[in-house]
């Protein structure tokens, strides 16, 4: 047996010559890479592309709604566009956005591992995602689909649009999501660096863990639901189609059994990013580490029991409606606790208002609105009035966009120097964040009002009383567009001629900040050893860079 390993400090090399981006520049080395960072970057490029596609569709919808009647497109086009906007944003952008893109790049690094547990499976899941995306694009080109992203039967079994190729695309993408989730769970269980016990995991990892559990448990049910829907259309199996003796409400139960937990696939990773941002930029130990970690798991668990709250008016039994409403409120509780923990973390901190922190603050404000309006929608009698109105549209945009997208942007800015090795223009970043914040509220606040006044969603035309509010909302969408263009502009500038980034620009304590920017090809050339928690700012920074030589002798270095 080897002698006891020597624990020593491994300072990061500043501005390394070779790193994961340039150690092999051939196209093949990208397309066939099994490096989680490169796969993550390919995901990142894809999700940003699809965010752009979904965003353009949204601008078109908002422009059409400038007028109560026809503005520049007909009803069928409008219906296809809102369906695609939803499907693209949900399945192609938001579900993979944080876990598959940012998570892929940073999860192994934050665990002190050289890669995820199954690198080839990771690449496969990227290509499965691309395959699913191609089906979606194919459906767009072949008449589109006009059922709404929920594919409710019997409309989806009778609609003349490209339902089969679209649902098949989503079916395929589901497997990508499942494989990523499996990979992350195994990686978190088995690949942690020595000393990195569960209680020292960064909260971003905890949130990815909770997300991965939902992905693994919920997505197969979506897969079988969509398979049944495809069979319904091709063979007429009659399980969901009332014309053949089936039950359309059963479809809704199947669908929301996945799609409600899927909401947490979208938002829980955002919680993880916010925890990192608040702690790092307050340079302070996180308040209530376990409360935040376990509330993610609690949300993941309760999230499986509340799917029926999408169906209060569907004709399900009154008893189920009441039970689902009751349980729904228990998702609100851990969510509220998280928000208060974050605010408490800022108390007596040393708050550095850089752009990622600005996004975190905006997230807290917008997500609180999203959460509180969720309580409104959980209240039974009020829900009956608000269900399927613009109030719901505004609510989930506050959660999904004000929550997840703002957190995603915060995370993107936070880790940008780390994976590109370049800094961005901080002033422009702050301006863009403020523009987005104004544009976002201008777009969606009026929608709350319209909704409670009774404006139903998925409406191509509307009665004139709503026109003013619709126009505010449309102008807001343009402001949002300008904000995103500005971000795109300065990030491209940063790639082209940005100042070289140091290894730890924000003074973080978790493992990704202890290695070079951009990261080395295999993350660590030593075996990192974790002594302190990721938010222990009171400990000397040298003690966060400890490691042992990995040489090639695999000695007593079991990860668990």
């Amino acid at each position, binding site marked *: 047996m080897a002698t006891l390993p020597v624990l020593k400090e491994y300072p990061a090399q500043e501005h390394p010559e070779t790193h994961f981006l340039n150690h092999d520049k051939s196209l093949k080395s990208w397309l066939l890479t099994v490096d989680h960072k490169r796969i993550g970057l390919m995901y990142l490029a894809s999700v940003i592309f699809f965010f752009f596609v979904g965003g353009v569709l949204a601008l078109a919808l908002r422009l059409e709604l400038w007028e109560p009647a026809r503005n520049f497109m007909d009803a069928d086009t409008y219906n296809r566009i809102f369906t695609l906007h939803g499907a693209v944003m949900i399945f192609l952008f938001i579900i993979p956005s944080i876990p598959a893109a940012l998570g892929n790049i940073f999860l192994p690094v934050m665990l002190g591992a050289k890669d995820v547990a199954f*690198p080839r499976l990771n690449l496969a899941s990227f290509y499965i995602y691309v395959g699913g995306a191609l089906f979606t694009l194919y459906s767009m080109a072949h008449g589109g689909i006009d059922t709404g992203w929920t594919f409710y039967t019997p409309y989806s079994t009778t609609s003349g649009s490209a339902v089969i190729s679209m649902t098949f695309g989503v079916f395929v993408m589901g497997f990508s999501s499942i494989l990523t989730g499996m990979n992350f*769970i195994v990686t978190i269980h088995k690949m942690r660096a020595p000393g990195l016990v569960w209680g020292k995991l960064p909260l971003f990892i905890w949130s990815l863990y909770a997300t991965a559990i939902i992905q693994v448990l919920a997505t197969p049910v979506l897969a079988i639901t969509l398979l049944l829907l495809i069979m319904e259309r091709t*063979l007429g*199996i009659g*399980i969901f189609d009332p014309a053949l003796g089936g039950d359309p409400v059963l479809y809704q139960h199947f669908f929301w059994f996945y799609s409600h937990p899927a909401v947490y696939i979208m938002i829980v990773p955002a919680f993880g990013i916010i925890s990192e941002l608040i702690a790092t930029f307050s340079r302070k130990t996180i308040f209530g580490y376990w409360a935040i970690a376990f509330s993610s798991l609690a949300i993941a668990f309760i999230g499986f029991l509340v799917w029926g709250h999408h169906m209060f008016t569907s004709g399900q039994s009154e008893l189920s409606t009441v039970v689902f409403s009751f349980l729904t409120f228990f998702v609100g509780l851990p969510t509220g606790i998280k928000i208060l923990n974050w605010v408490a973390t800022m108390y007596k901190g040393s708050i550095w208002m850089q752009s990622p922190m600005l996004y975190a603050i905006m997230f807290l404000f917008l997500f609180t609105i999203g959460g509180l309006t969720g309580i409104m929608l959980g209240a039974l009698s009020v829900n009956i009035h608000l269900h399927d109105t613009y109030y719901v549209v505004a609510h989930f945009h506050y959660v999904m966009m004000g929550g997840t997208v703002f957190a995603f942007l915060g995370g993107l800015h936070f880790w940008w120097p780390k994976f590109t090795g370049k800094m961005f223009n901080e002033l422009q970043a702050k301006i863009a964040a403020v523009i987005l914040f104004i544009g976002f509220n201008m777009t969606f606040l009026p929608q709350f009002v319209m909704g409670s006044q009774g404006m139903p969603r998925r409406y191509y035309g509307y009665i004139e009383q709503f026109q003013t509010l619709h126009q505010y909302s449309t102008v807001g969408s343009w402001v949002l567009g300008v904000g995103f263009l500005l971000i795109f502009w300065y990030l491209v500038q940063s790639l082209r001629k940005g100042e070289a980034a140091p290894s730890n620009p924000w003074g973080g304590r978790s493992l990704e900040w202890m290695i070079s920017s951009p990261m080395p090809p295999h993350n660590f050339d030593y075996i990192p050893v974790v002594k302190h928690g990721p938010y222990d700012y009171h400990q000397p920074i040298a003690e966060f860079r400890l490691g042992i030589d990995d040489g090639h002798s695999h000695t007593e270095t*079991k990860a668990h």
Partner: protein
Amino acid sequence: MSHTDATHSNSHLQHHFVDSDQQFDSAKLGMWLFLVTEILFFGGLFVAYIVYRAWNPELFTMAATQLDTVMGGINTLVLIGSSLTMALAIRAAQTDNPSASIKYLASTVALAFVFMVIKYFEYTHKFELGIYPGEAYSFTGIDHPKAHIFFSIYYMMTGLHGIHVIIGIGIITWLIIKTRNGAFNSSYYTPVEITGLYWHLVDIIWIFLFPLLYLID
């Protein structure tokens, strides 16, 4: 085997793992998670089954008489037998006995083929009667307006299970080739072990399907 000796042939150890144990544990946990997703995937169909059976209990009793209990029973025995040969194949791989391992793997494949052939006869017999899935259903022997839904569920469940058997045949055949090339030994037999887990799951799902579909009274 608490600590596989790292100096032993490490050709199978991927660069990002610290040692073989970690790699083996990871693969096994990954497979278990995959099996969980499989159970949930089939779970959707089981829920559809439960819901329709609760709504139409009489239909399920009537329709089950059209299913051939003898053939289903034989198939159950065939699959249980294949699970046994699979377990023996793993044992042989663990004990550095590749020729026995190949023999058992081949028996597993053979039994899987027997299963599929019996399934083929069951399906063709039903098609002759006009028992097709979905709208093509034209059998008049069951006096119930939703008879076609029972058979849609039957075909979905057994069909999806059949696809899993075929995938299993493919993977086990690949294992036979790898074993012949000497890929596995007592320190590395992960693919055989986790394929075994998969195969047992396929078997267990059938053990649920058989009574639920064939043995309703």
